[in-house]
């Protein structure tokens, strides 16, 4: 059986499973559609939240970004897990106690203002849509590879599947489907990592293998990797090269953003009790950590394998891999299959029949290249987003592992895209239409408008996904910045302050998200349209602050504006103070709330 058929079988079987579960648990009433009837156990909820959370960015993109940058991209690891501490301590239990369906409902009630609710909805839609763009980038890569078509075709097919999938089930379908998706994605991520860790270090646990010994050389794996990449003129893998201030801000933005993303927060409305909301955040992080502790090992080991593969005869001082080897040898098959997607390419620039892979920006390497007659790096294109999906092929693992990874990548992208679309559609239909524009809308009309909103969101995301503002994880990082600057501060002040009033909260959210959005658009192009940017992240407007790191500053602006404006306007009414007091204690939390 060829690889294409195996991939098709694995992907087909996993899809059949999800669809089966979705039909079995098909949503009925609106309340079930949004919050799964609130009868979900914390562990189950944790697993589903983990699947919802770990998107194409975590599964497909993150290890690739770590692999090619090393230590400097540790921000993704700390940022996307550290946010759960904020979520568990500062938000989850209180929002569950408050007991409504959506994040913007809390903001609307707590700040006793319809305007606050609508501003929150708009912030939420902006952040979620940006997030979906990142997912579509990943979906394009995954479908492109497994159907062996180019990236753009893959993206269109993927978009159609995501839409069909999200529209036919509500949250309940999504909750149990996501448990299945978690199982598929974690198996798909871990199994190749175990194989590769065994090959390289003899240790079956990749997270330990990373700090273990490289079996072939007897040196520590990371020391070996440092030696190989510096030999090729790249930065030392484990060393700190990035700007420290930007790294701190970026990590903080990802953390705050995690705690401000509506599709994750919504999850904590679905547990039966306040105490369960606390546990649930912990369980979610357990399931996320299983992947996040493996990811840095996947990155480092893949980088080592690729470097050795391009220089199979004893490193840079031996001979580079030949074009003929790439075209004929089985172990280079992955390069040919990925070339079809347009995301990997090579070119024998100096016509010596070999492909030299090195950092042609490094001065030492330029001197060496001049001496040896090289005319630039010949591995001309290596999209970071292909690394995880290509990893089992690079390590020459059996065909079924490759099929499994294809299914896992799709599970990650689909589950998150579906969760986000749900958040967007409930924001539009429940908060915007039912809450503000037409309160007398029928339940059927509400469901209908939810589906229309989903369709619009996916069309926009697909269009922008064709020219994404970055690799999947980078685009997703922008979404986190937007959530960090708008939703998180409003929620936190809503719970922890009895000073911040309606005007303050609205002014804070508007200031936070506008400044952040403008900063992002200045660097990534207006509405992410390429070529309309005035600055680049290589040379940002403010010192070393990249657009992906700006969320933390946006959040600070939000807090500052909210407190200042509240200080100048009328204090909170007594009943809102009472509401804040009651949110702070678990007693009296409603059971499964239905309308």
């Amino acid at each position: 059986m060829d690889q294409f058929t195996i991939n098709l079988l694995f992907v087909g079987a996993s899809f059949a499973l999800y669809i089966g579960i979705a039909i079995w648990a098909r949503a009925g009433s609106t309340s079930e559609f949004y919050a799964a009837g609130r009868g979900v156990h914390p562990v189950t909820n944790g697993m589903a939240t983990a699947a919802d959370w770990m998107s194409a960015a975590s599964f497909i993109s993150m290890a690739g970004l770590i692999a090619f940058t090393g230590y400097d991209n540790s921000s993704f690891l700390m940022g996307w897990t550290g946010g759960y501490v904020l979520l568990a301590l500062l938000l989850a239990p209180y929002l569950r106690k408050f007991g409504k369906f959506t994040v913007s409902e809390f903001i609307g009630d707590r700040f006793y203002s319809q305007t606050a609710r609508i501003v929150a909805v708009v912030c939420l839609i902006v952040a979620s849509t940006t997030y979906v763009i990142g997912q579509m980038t990943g979906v394009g890569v995954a479908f492109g590879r497994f159907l062996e078509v180019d990236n753009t075709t893959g993206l269109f097919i993927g978009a159609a599947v995501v839409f069909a999938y999200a529209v036919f089930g509500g949250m309940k379908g999504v909750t149990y489907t996501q448990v299945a998706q978690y199982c598929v994605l974690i198996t798909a991520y871990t199994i190749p990592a175990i194989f590769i860790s065994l090959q390289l270090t003899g240790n079956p646990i990749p997270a330990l293998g990373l700090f273990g010994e490289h079996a072939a050389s007897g040196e520590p794996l990371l020391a070996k990797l440092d030696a190989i990449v510096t030999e090729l003129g790249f930065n030392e893998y484990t060393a700190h090269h990035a700007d420290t201030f930007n790294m701190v801000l970026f990590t903080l933005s990802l953390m705050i953003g995690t705690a401000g993303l509506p599709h994750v927060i919504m999850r904590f409305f679905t547990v039966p009790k306040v105490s369960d909301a606390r546990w649930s955040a912990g369980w979610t992080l357990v399931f996320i950590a299983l992947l996040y502790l493996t990811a840095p090992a996947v990155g480092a080991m893949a980088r080592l394998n690729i470097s050795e593969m391009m220089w199979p005869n004893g490193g840079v001082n031996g001979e580079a891999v030949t074009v003929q080897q790439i075209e004929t040898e089985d172990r280079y098959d992955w390069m040919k299959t990925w070339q079809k997607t347009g995301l990997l390419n090579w070119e024998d620039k100096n016509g010596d029949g070999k492909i030299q892979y090195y950092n042609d920006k490094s001065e030492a390497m330029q001197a060496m290249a001049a001496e040896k007659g090289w005319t630039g790096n010949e591995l001309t294109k290596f999209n970071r987003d292909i690394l995880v999906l290509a990893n089992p092929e690079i390590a020459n693992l059996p065909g079924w592992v490759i099929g499994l990874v294809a299914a896992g990548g799709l599970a990650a992208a689909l589950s998150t895209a579906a969760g986000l679309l749900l958040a967007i559609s409930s924001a539009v239909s429940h908060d915007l239409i039912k809450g503000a524009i037409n309160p007398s809308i029928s339940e059927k009309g509400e469901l209908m408008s939810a589906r229309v909103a989903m369709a619009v969101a996916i069309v926009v995301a697909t269009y922008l996904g064709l020219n994404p503002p970055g690799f999947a994880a980078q685009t997703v990082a922008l979404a986190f910045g937007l959530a960090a600057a708008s939703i998180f501060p409003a929620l936190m002040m809503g719970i922890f302050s009895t000073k911040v009033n309606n005007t303050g909260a609205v002014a804070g959210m508007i200031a936070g998200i506008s400044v952040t959005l403008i900063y992002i658009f200045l660097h990534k192009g207006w509405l992410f349209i390429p070529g309309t940017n005035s600055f680049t992240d290589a040379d940002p407007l403010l010192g070393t602050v990249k657009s992906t790191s700006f969320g933390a500053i946006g959040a600070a602006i939000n807090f500052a504006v909210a407190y200042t404006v509240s200080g100048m306007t009328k204090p909170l009414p007594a009943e809102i103070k009472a509401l804040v007091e009651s949110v702070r204690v678990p007693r009296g939390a409603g059971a499964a709330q239905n309308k």
Partner: protein
Amino acid sequence: MADNSSNDAYWSANLRIIMISLVIWAVVSFGFGILLRPMLSGIAIGGTDLGFWFAQQGSIIVFLILIFNYAMRMNKLDREHGVDEE
């Protein structure tokens, strides 16, 4: 419903636990993982230093401990102050 003075004590106890947890949260990630990494460079672990380990693994493990510890303490605190769910 418990009276207000008990609720105030409950809330300040909660805030204290949150503060301590967040200090640890910041120290392991922004501290050990990034800013204080040079200080930990002397402690070798698997071909690199302890700061690298905190940045790529250690902080995540500490985050997990922090959340479960918080859930446990708070659920106990709820009962002590009589504000738990019945």
